[in-house]
């Protein structure tokens, strides 16, 4: 072991860490999709003010907002197997830790998605609902065909920020033994060679690139599906 900090290791490590991207991306996509579904359900529960469920969602929201992400992850990772064993008798302690990462982050992210979508729906003009009703559409029909697309458009910037945050926070997965994502690989790589800082810088580079791509993807989605203007007029 020569120098304490060897800048030449960074390109090498960056290439090696590429192998962590599939797991990080898989985590990101799974959590995003699940959170969109769950978040929408939460938002509907809040808007419809469904008794009992409303209170549960309210508690979840305060929990996700106030408890640090790493604590949430530990609570799910160490707590859920106990619950599962208690109720089903199945031993979950040896399940893939990735599963618990997905569960923990879905809980957390869906809460933020819920608030983003709820406020977006509530910001829409009541007349959008009424126009739908006036041609005989039912609440679910109006909601899906008219309200949802407009709400997504409004909430997209907030969804994007929360998704970006979630992606980088998945790095915490290494604390419960995930080794296949970017941060897991970086920890192993750096730990073996004692060049931890170089590994972390390489990981930084990859996260920067991933985030950059994510921003572009979101802006494409926004332009393509949620602008509600003719193409010619958008180009101007």
């Amino acid at each position, binding site marked *: 072991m020569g120098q304490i900090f060897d800048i030449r290791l960074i390109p090498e490590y960056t290439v090696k860490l590429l192998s962590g991207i599939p797991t990080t991306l898989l985590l990101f996509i799974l959590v995003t999709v699940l959170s969109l579904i769950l978040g929408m359900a939460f938002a509907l529960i809040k808007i419809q003010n469904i008794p009992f469920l409303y209170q549960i969602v309210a508690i979840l929201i305060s929990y996700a907002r106030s408890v640090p992400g790493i604590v949430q992850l530990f609570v799910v990772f160490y707590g859920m197997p106990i619950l599962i064993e208690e109720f089903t008798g199945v031993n979950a302690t040896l399940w893939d830790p990735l599963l618990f990462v997905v569960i923990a982050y879905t809980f957390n992210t869906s809460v933020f998605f819920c608030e983003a979508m709820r406020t977006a729906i509530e910001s829409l*003009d009541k*007349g*959008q609902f*009424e*126009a*739908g*009703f*006036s*041609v*005989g*559409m*039912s609440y679910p*029909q109006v909601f899906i*065909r*008219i309200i949802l*697309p*407009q709400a997504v*458009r409004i909430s997209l910037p907030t969804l994007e920020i929360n998704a970006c945050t979630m992606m980088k926070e998945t790095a915490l997965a290494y604390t419960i033994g995930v080794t296949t994502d970017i941060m897991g690989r970086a920890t192993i790589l750096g730990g073996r060679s004692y060049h931890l800082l170089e590994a972390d810088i390489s990981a930084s580079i990859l996260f920067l690139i991933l985030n950059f791509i994510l921003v572009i993807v979101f802006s494409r989605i926004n332009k393509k599906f949620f602008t*509600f*203007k*003719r193409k010619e*007029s958008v180009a101007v």
Partner: protein
Amino acid sequence: MIELRNIKKSFGKNEVLKDVSVSVNDSDVVVILGPSGSGKTTLLRCINFLEKADSGILKVNRDVINLKNAGKKEIQDIRKRVSFVFQHYNLFANKTAIENVAEGLIVTKKMKKTEAIKIAAEHLEWVGLSDRKDFYPSELSGGQQQRVGIARAVAMDPEVILFDEPTSALDPELVGDILNLIKKVARKGIAMIVVTHEMSFAQEVANKVIFMDGGYVVEEGRPEDIFIHPKEERTRAFLSKIVPLEPMYNI
């Protein structure tokens, strides 16, 4: 034929409709006048259940519906037969002009998409907006949006169309165009109830004028009777404020 009987509606302690009965014959054009807060708009909204009346009966041809405890099916059925044109147009912001007109046909009339689009195109042409069919509401002027709103209402082939102050949000120079279009709807023979402050329109097009105040129908009758020989003092006071003394200026 549409008949409303003994409609009552309060918002909290505020009694907006105290006891209102109105009847509309086929191809009638009924204009409802009255000062703000008299309950005109609320009455209209109660007819297609955008507000739930506290009590009252709605008769649409042979169907008799209790406004207070109508079921979901009944409500949707009435809404299919009763179209609504809004003061603020309320076009679907995420749909183009033609999609706005086709939406109800596809979703509630269960038409095939191609057929619905064809009918929607015909109606857009009828309101003079063929060249704007692929525009989104945000790209249309107020007058154009209201044309689409009227096309959307007419395309549903309703038994009656309710107009809630259809020209109040428009630039003054566009009001005439929209009123002409509403006259065109009237000539189609569709019954309509119009809440408006356009007196000349009421005089020209309506065959029945209803004057409301304070949650009651104060007076109703043929336009010439209401405008020239109002029986009630309250009607006279209202009209003298609204109709200019010099008919010259009443465009």
